[in-house]
């Protein structure tokens, strides 16, 4: 069947198309350049509308144990956002940590067609994939968390051969069905189990003697040499601590050209200036990013209201638990693999600290000049639930709206940030880079995030409304694999998206020391630790797409 979207203003940065009026043709789920005179089976008149590829969220906590702990923790938060079933859709609940089904519907209703869970513990990978399997419509993928797992720390402490470490990274990506690797508070989650309460970039882990710097460079270099497209995804040391901007700058310098992605950088951009010894470090980070094109970031924007923070960073979450609102929180030490911390939180516009966090996020967006290296995230649900994206986009695209919003926040906070002096407004083209082309390129999704021939038929059509919040909240049409799934912001068809993985090469000999390790210390066998393809796709839960990796170096 040939579908034609006629006359839309197309924003397709991967193909350098900036708002030109073009027709888009889709056949068998793919964007095509049709043969001249081909018969169109269905035409959608999208004249005057804005057409983009489906949006991609490269960092959103949508699946896995800590998300389900967060869901369980706050029944009152769900009770205010209960969603009834319809003929097409299942019932569920929303707000800070929506149920899986509502997550899928609402992302699609916002024009998103792919979401990536950034913190999948290998020990919890099966559950993370089951939850993503119950998240309809959107494509999914997950980043395996490494860096506080005892197997890696033992290899590093024993100074084992680097190729063995690479084998282990690759094996873990296969076993947990990951597309990328994330490190969270490098070594710090493990150090917390040994009662260390802080681990700075060059501070030694009390038991293994390795430092976060060692871990970042080992994993970062490992992924590069394995040919994995997405660079090491780093949740750095010292999250939330005033003065952590120094750690972040040091981490960028430590890379020495190695590609790295610093995630939710807003939480890592705090200085110690000003009367309250808490000010913005965003300008310094933006400046250093200009000189380091090897570094990409996402923001982790804070928006005001109640949410729930859920992180693998047990060390920092334990510290933050004293600010829990409401006063209940969960910390876990997990399987000699990782940990997690779930702490509900309310960001208040009249709070100096929270207003400054808000301002730092916006500053980061507005100061970073290269939209290909910055992605739009709230670190859902940590900075705010994902439904706030349209509001965030308006803050970035509409200077006068932003100035109005600044009137509402603590004025002292604005004095300690450069936000009031920034006049930049994002263009639709830049938004399309930040929410489509950029994440697709960074994650190595070869046929997502663009609208050229061969691209997957994931397409979003918006009404070109001057109120950008209204525009991005309710797309006119959303197509998934060429099928119309959302019309006027409402799901009209439920499909299952694919799961994206990457499979770098490894030497199977790694399974010998791994099997010994599992047999000696673990409570599950290596064979059962490994997640099969069938487990992900059974029950019609969508295909697995293996994204290409470059050839492995040594």
């Amino acid at each position, binding site marked *: 069947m040939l579908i034609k979207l006629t006359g839309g203003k197309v924003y397709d940065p991967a193909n350098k198309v900036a708002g030109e009026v073009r027709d888009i043709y889709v056949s068998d789920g793919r964007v095509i350049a049709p043969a001249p005179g081909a018969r169109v089976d269905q035409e959608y008149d999208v004249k005057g509308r804005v057409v983009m590829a489906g949006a991609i969220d490269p960092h959103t906590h949508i699946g896995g144990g800590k998300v389900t702990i967060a869901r369980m923790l706050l029944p009152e938060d769900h009770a205010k956002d*209960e969603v009834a079933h319809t003929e097409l859709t299942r*019932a*569920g*609940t929303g707000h800070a940590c929506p149920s*899986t089904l509502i997550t899928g519907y609402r992302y699609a209703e916002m024009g998103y067609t792919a979401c990536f869970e950034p913190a999948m513990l290998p020990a919890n990978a099966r559950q993370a994939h089951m939850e993503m399997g119950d998240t309809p419509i959107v494509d999914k993928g997950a980043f395996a968390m490494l860096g506080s797992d005892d197997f890696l720390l033992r290899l590093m402490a024993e100074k084992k051969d680097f190729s063995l470490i690479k084998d282990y990274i690759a094996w873990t990506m296969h076993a947990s069905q990951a597309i990328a690797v994330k490190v969270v508070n490098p070594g710090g989650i493990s150090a917390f189990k040994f009662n260390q309460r802080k681990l700075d970039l060059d501070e030694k882990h009390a038991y293994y003697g390795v430092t976060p710097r060692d871990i970042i460079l080992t994993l970062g270099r490992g992924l590069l040499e394995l040919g994995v497209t997405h660079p090491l995804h780093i949740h750095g040391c010292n999250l939330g601590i005033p003065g952590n901007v120094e750690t972040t700058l040091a981490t960028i310098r430590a890379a020495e050209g190695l590609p790295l992605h610093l995630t939710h950088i807003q939480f890592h951009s705090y200085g110690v200036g000003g009367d309250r010894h808490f000010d913005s470090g965003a300008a310094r980070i933006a400046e250093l990013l200009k000189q380091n094109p090897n570094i990409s970031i996402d923001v982790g924007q804070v928006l005001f209201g109640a949410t729930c923070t859920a992180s693998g960073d047990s060390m920092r979450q334990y510290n933050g638990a004293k600010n829990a609102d409401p*006063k209940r929180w*969960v910390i*876990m030490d997990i399987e000699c693999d990782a940990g997690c911390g779930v702490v509900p939180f309310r960001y208040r516009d009249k709070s100096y600290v929270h207003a400054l966090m808000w301002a730092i996020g916006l500053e980061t967006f507005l100061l970073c000049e290269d939209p290909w290296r910055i992605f739009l995230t709230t670190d859902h649900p940590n900075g705010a639930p994902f439904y706030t994206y349209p509001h965030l986009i308006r803050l970035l695209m509409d200077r006068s709206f932003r100035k109005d919003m600044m009137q509402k926040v603590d004025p002292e906070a604005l004095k300690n940030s450069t936000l009031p002096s920034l006049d930049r407004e994002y263009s639709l083209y830049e938004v399309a880079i930040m929410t489509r082309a950029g994440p697709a390129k960074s994650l190595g999704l070869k046929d997502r995030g663009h609208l050229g021939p061969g691209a997957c038929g994931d397409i979003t059509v918006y009404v070109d409304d001057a109120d950008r919040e209204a525009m991005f909240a309710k797309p006119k049409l959303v197509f998934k694999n060429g099928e119309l799934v959302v019309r006027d912001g409402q799901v009209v068809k439920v499909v299952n998206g694919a799961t994206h993985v990457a499979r770098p090469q490894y030497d199977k000999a790694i399974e010998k020391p791994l099997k010994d390790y599992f047999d000696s210390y673990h*409570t599950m066998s290596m064979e059962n630790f490994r997640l099969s393809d069938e487990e992900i796709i059974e029950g019609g839960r969508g295909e697995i797409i293996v994204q290409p990796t470059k050839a492995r170096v040594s």
Partner: protein
Amino acid sequence: MSAQSDGMSGGAASELYKNVACPFCGLLCDDIEIERTGSTLKVVKNGCPRSTAGFQRDLPAAAPMVDGKEVSLEVAIAAAAARIKAANLPLYGGMATDVDGARAVLSLADRSCGVVDHALSEGQYRNIKVVQTSGWIMSTLTETRNRADVIVIVGSDVHKLHGRFFDRIVCPPKSMFDTGGKKRTVIFIGENLDTSAATGPRVGEVITLSCHNTRLTELLGVISARVRGFELKATRTAEPKRGLLSSLLPQSWIASAPNEEIVGLKLSAIDAVVEKIKAASYGVMVWSPAGLSFPQADLAVHLISEIVKELNVTTRAAGLSLGGNEGSASAASVATWQTGFPLRVSYANGKPEFDSYRYSIGRMLAENEGDLLLWLSSFTTDLGPPSARIPTVVLGTPGLRLAQQPAVFIPVGTPGVDHAGIMIRCDNVVSLPMKNLGRSQLPRAADVLAAIEQAL
């Protein structure tokens, strides 16, 4: 889909299965070896009494029944669907199944505007109430196995409930951080707890604080106070008029002088335990919710969690809840990710509504709420439906104990025995692939439920 309980292969050739995960308790031990000959299973390695009994049980012949008469599976499915269609408020209880089974129950309940709950929710809610009021700091099986230097077993006969917990977690042959040959201290707090398994080269001191379960909460309160450094010798100086708080203190605290007994124990004995857990590098307090079967046992779990939180101010400590039997951990997790609520959810108004008291199916049955009970129990024969005054549709393992004749009975397979599946372990972190051991061709509950939903 057929409803035969015959084995996969008719011949007597036997097959060996390795790395088998056991579905019969929440630990999901996955190092079991099983030999199948025809439809007979034999545990050849790493069984415990519970798993051996589960795997080796003789499977009686069973067929779908409607009103006591044998029918085909299709007829039974149509009859179940008709009952559900006619019901105003169907109750979906039992839920003793795997992840796919739980998914199918939720889907059917959503579609038919019913209520969902698990047979063992009462125990699980001792934990969930704590998560939903104050939260906690928890560990997992592997973390505890390798890291714990002090293990405190609280109020539950863990050895009886989870036969390999001591072998695998407390006394493993090797652990990662046992440098210097430091041995573990194991402390039992409770009534007549079986301490016999706390033995072997890994275990050092074994201490018991004997305390009747009805006073366990009180004892935990004392431990909590002592961990915080509060004096308890006090005394009648606490004047009744000083406020609500002192009037809430158990009488025994107030009556105790320094060297007297509290909760029937010498304060010095309690303090000795307090010193051990405070001195631990990584103390783990272990309980099984099923073992804490006394009124308001969630308060005991709350106090365990508060003790752990206090210990973490200076050292590291964590809780570890066992339990999770009969697929309860799987059901609670699936319900939480699909609805936002850990079971006890009603879809009666089309949207999920949660009330841990109102939507307890046990309470609803006792108070004549609901007009149809669909009971799913696929592991053990003991977990039959409670006696109910309303008609029942039972999806059960053959031989399931039935208090009354169900309107519809459909035999279903056991996950990890008759068919493959996935289950979630008691620590709610690890999930295991369950193998099809080919014992029978009984259908998966998930498939039967999907067929019922299809027929609505």
